[in-house]
């Protein structure tokens, strides 16, 4: 990033609107365009990953093997996870960050616009490369998204491509994270001090640091897999003095913070939306910031709770159990704060608020099962069963995904200048919230009753709940098309209702973005705002 480049960017911003035609989307360095690209891509991948989930639920609809062979089933579970994590949830939050962070902190754009463009296109390349492994000899990776050796080394032609795709996705995430940190540190309006930043910005700042710390470690781990397979190293190969369990330690050193990468921005959006619809300031702003930071810190020292059954000395088991239990405290603080924010408010229940409330309730349920699993002896029963499948889907689908939906409904009027169809929005919410529970709640029962995860077929006593779960899955899957319809309809201005600048009652007291016109002009805050709202603090 030389000064000359920045100078050029600067001129661009002042003198021109967007490029005409499709090329605009390829070469754009505008944070709003890139945000849109990320969000659209994430939505597309949400449907791709969802289609894979439909294959899984269809095969599990009834006992017996009906549609796919076991190897392909394993590819589906693996690819579903990788696509959803790296292709849908993470890019969606990066998209929100791109759109909203500059507008929330009064900055004209992201700090590093060109890198921004590059990180998006690397993401696309990475995901396409990953998807291409589906068509390779030996099939897509089928060792689970955790890619444990020695199993993952049995992957066919796809292995090096999958690993290279992880590298691309990692570099893309790291560039995105660096950009976000630089934007938050250097581009804030002078009045926007750190402790006045909206919580979405705060949680993303912490998330970005997590990403910078963990993505390189993951890149290292998969590189070791690559050299083990092709260059005769033996990091994880016992025959050469290595240890397959070492991979699990490195992976979960990445993996545990990684799941928080998907949940911390979720907390941020919820903390942004709930006060607006409760017409109250957020309860305990600074405790929210500290709780987020402590969750992020704890995420680095609890990784081996994913490995209780791997055979650790009892002192290790106990340490990881205690450390993991600690996470319940800051997480509890957050839930209590959201509840206190609603308490004695003046609430209305537009779609964003509905999704946010559902998030608080259902995420807390995922948190409860998480607490149960932190108890190491009990985890000797829960581990690798459908109980954990239920747990992490509760913390990802009705939590992260619901909040992404909430964010979509919340900011779509700002982005497009039109209100979305509230009636269909609420319909989408109610179908989603019911079906997601029909989908995942029975999986607790299945896990407790003894059904292992990642199996393509099961004993007949698991048949009833699997069928119910699958029905929930199909309804949930299909109902997301409503969201797609609403997004398209809103962009086209289908409701015909023009959005006001503040969109939501008194929202301008909660965030700078609501002081801008709807839709905002191509370039905003070219001069920083003099004052910032403090209602959210």
């Amino acid at each position, binding site marked *: 990033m030389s000064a000359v480049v920045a100078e050029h960017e600067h001129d661009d911003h002042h003198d021109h609107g967007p490029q005409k035609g499709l090329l605009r989307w390829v070469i754009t360095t505008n944070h709003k365009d890139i945000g849109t690209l990320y969000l659209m891509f994430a939505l597309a991948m949400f449907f791709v990953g969802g289609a894979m989930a439909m294959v899984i639920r269809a095969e599990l609809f009834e006992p017996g093997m009906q549609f796919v062979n076991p190897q392909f089933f394993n590819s589906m579970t693996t690819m579903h996870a990788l696509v959803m994590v790296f292709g849908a949830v993470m890019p969606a939050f990066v998209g929100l960050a791109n759109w909203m962070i500059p507008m929330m902190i009064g900055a004209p754009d992201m700090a590093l616009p060109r890198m921004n463009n590059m990180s998006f296109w690397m993401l696309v390349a990475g995901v396409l490369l990953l998807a291409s492994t589906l068509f390779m000899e030996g099939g897509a990776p089928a060792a689970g998204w955790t890619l444990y050796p020695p199993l993952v080394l049995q992957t066919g032609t796809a292995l090096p491509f999958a690993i290279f795709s992880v590298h691309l996705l990692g570099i893309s995430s790291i560039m995105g994270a*660096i950009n976000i940190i630089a934007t938050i540190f250097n581009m804030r309006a002078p009045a926007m001090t750190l402790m006045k930043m909206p919580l979405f910005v705060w949680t993303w700042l912490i998330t970005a640091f997590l990403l910078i710390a963990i993505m*390189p470690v993951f890149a290292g781990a998969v590189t070791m897999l690559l050299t083990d397979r092709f260059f005769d190293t033996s990091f994880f190969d016992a025959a050469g003095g290595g240890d397959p369990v070492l991979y699990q330690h490195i992976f979960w050193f990445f993996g545990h913070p990684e799941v928080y990468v998907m949940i911390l921005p979720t907390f941020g959006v919820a903390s942004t939306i709930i006060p607006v619809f409760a017409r109250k300031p957020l309860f305990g702003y600074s405790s929210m910031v500290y709780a987020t930071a402590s969750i992020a810190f704890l995420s680095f020292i609890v990784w081996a709770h994913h490995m209780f059954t791997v055979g650790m000395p009892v002192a290790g088991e106990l340490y990881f159990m205690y450390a993991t239990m600690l996470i319940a405290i800051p997480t509890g603080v957050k839930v209590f704060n959201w509840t206190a924010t609603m308490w004695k408010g003046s609430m209305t229940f537009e779609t964003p608020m509905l999704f946010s409330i559902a998030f608080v309730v259902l995420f807390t349920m995922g948190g409860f099962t998480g607490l149960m699993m932190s108890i190491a002896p009990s985890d000797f029963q829960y581990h690798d069963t459908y109980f954990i499948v239920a747990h992490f889907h509760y913390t990802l689908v009705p939590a992260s995904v619901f909040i992404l939906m909430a964010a979509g409904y919340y900011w779509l009027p700002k982005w497009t200048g039109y209100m979305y169809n509230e009636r269909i929005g609420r319909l989408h919410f109610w179908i989603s919230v019911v079906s997601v529970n029909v989908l995942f709640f029975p999986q607790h029962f299945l896990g407790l009753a003894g059904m292992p995860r990642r199996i393509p077929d099961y004993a007949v006593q698991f048949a009833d709940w699997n069928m119910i779960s699958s029905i929930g899955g199909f309804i949930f899957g299909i109902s997301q098309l409503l969201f797609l319809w609403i997004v398209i309809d809103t962009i086209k201005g289908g409701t015909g209702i023009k959005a006001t600048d503040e969109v939501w009652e008194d929202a301008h007291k909660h965030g700078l973005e609501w002081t801008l016109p709807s839709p905002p002009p191509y370039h905003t805050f070219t001069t920083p705002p003099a004052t910032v709202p403090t209602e959210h603090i």
Partner: protein
Amino acid sequence: MKENITQKNTKLVVTLVFVVLGMFGFGYALVPLYDVLCDITGLNGKVEGAAVKEISYEVDKSREITVEFMSALNESTPMVFRPETKKLKIHPGEYHTVNFYAENKTDKVMVARAIPSISPGPAAEYLQKIECFCFSEQTFKAHEGKTMPVRFVVNPELPEKYKTITLAYTFFDNTESSVKK
């Protein structure tokens, strides 16, 4: 002002890139760190790959430890492999030698490596080996059978709660990779 921001950005990006590179290095540093951790905590029952010097301990006659010997073969290792002694009752501090028998079942030269593992993990550091066929790769001629000694001592400092220690070896066929090298 603007120049200022560009400079600040550049500085920040450089710092963060170093953090990224550092963390990439850290991922690799976890490999030796893990071995250190294993040595300290007995994580995974990994044991040191080198011989210890034979020094004389005061034999603890007050208690007996059962040491079990176990053999395993990785799936594609065409060998016969078994301990000639399955169990030994010993006093901590006594030196003992046991034999393992391994035989190459193929018509070709085979290079194989035996990987030791000790359970319970925390007892691993107290089971010290003076001589072991696992310290290096073993070469077997076609159909060759070898009796291979393991000489060991259980350090008398072994905590009281451990009464049985299992020493297992798994032979891995490394012929292909050693040919490459």
